[in-house]
């Protein structure tokens, strides 16, 4: 009796795990479709390729794309003097357009900060160290907007991170994270995004996990969100313990996943489901 009940429980609990792991083939996206040509580089494609026409339309038009509420706000903050040093972003950088191409090489090791840093870290350093202003929260509206504004300047340019030199150990750490099984489901990132991209996991079409559109507006979030928030979501979905936004683990993972996206255009701010 006990054995039977326990068995039933096991099936009930495992059913969810198994159903999640029941991956099956979907219609492969047609990579020759001219509408998606911009979002394909060799055998890589971004989530735009598998988005519905409605979601693509929201990304295609900067007015339809709600991310631009945050971008507009960041554009106003760019010129705003803040902090004890009496500086704005513009005091050092001039017009934001001058940052064209800058984000394509992030994350990168910066000697004077002696660490691998993301665009968000750089904005944080600018604010606290050079402007002597209050730090912005990683997932706050100002940080999301500013990161999106900075990365937007490189929109359409290929992701071009380095995995050599001082970046190398971080790349290796990120790769290790990517292939490490973790959590209750015992999944690694690679199980979904390397072994099974293009296949369905229940009702979900697995992507390549390309991060070239962050911060992005997700229909689910109903707001702009960071790449590290998405990492947390993935980790939680596989019932693994998520790391903090901006943590060394996720920063190394950002380098590794950005390297995977090498050659794909910066899509920030993308719109995804």
């Amino acid at each position, binding site marked *: 009796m006990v054995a039977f009940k326990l068995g039933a429980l096991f099936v009930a609990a495992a059913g969810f795990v198994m159903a999640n792991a029941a991956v099956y083939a979907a219609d492969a996206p047609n990579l020759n479709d001219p509408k998606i040509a911009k979002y394909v580089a060799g055998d890589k494609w971004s989530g735009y390729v598998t988005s519905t026409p409605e979601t693509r339309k929201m990304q295609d038009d900067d007015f339809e794309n*709600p991310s631009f*509420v945050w971008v507009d*706000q960041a554009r106003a903050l760019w010129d705003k003097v803040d902090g004890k040093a009496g500086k704005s972003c513009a005091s050092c950088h001039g017009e934001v357009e001058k940052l064209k191409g800058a984000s394509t090489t992030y994350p990168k090791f910066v000697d004077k900060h002696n660490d691998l840093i993301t665009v968000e870290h750089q904005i944080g350093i600018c604010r606290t160290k050079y402007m002597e202003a209050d730090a912005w929260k990683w997932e706050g*509206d100002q940080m999301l907007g500013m990161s999106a504004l900075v990365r937007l300047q490189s929109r359409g340019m290929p992701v071009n991170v380095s995995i050599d030199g001082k970046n190398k150990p971080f790349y290796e750490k990120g790769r290790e994270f990517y292939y490490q099984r973790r959590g209750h489901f015992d999944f690694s990132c690679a199980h979904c995004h390397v072994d099974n991209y293009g296949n369905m996991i229940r009702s979900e079409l697995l992507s390549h996990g390309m991060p070239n559109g962050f911060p992005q507006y997700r229909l689910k979030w*109903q*707001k702009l969100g960071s790449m590290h928030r998405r990492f947390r979501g993935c980790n939680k979905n596989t019932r693994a313990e998520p790391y903090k936004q901006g943590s060394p683990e996720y920063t190394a993972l950002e380098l590794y996943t950005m390297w995977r996206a090498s050659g794909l255009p910066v899509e920030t701010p993308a719109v995804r489901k």
Partner: protein
Amino acid sequence: MAKARIKVPSSAKKGEIFEIKTLMSHNMETGRRKDKKTGELIPRKIINKFECVYNGKTVFSADFHPSISANPYLAFSCRATESGKLEFRWTEDGGAVTSETKEIQVS
């Protein structure tokens, strides 16, 4: 972060029907979510009314309920009759109003 984005042509021919697009930043709190920490219901706070006023005359308005998505988006049409001002008003639960104005030249 109440901020509106509005797209209106700066000029139009008399009689022409033009499109207006608006997007208001607002999380449209439904009143049905619970605070994860306290377990308390988060009170409803949505934009419940949108109005488009053309030279003092309301030409289009909308009543919103919580089933309207966050950052409410609205596209609609308007007939160009005369040069002047288009005023857009969003009213939040509790009565706070955000208003923006755009000029249009009609020839």
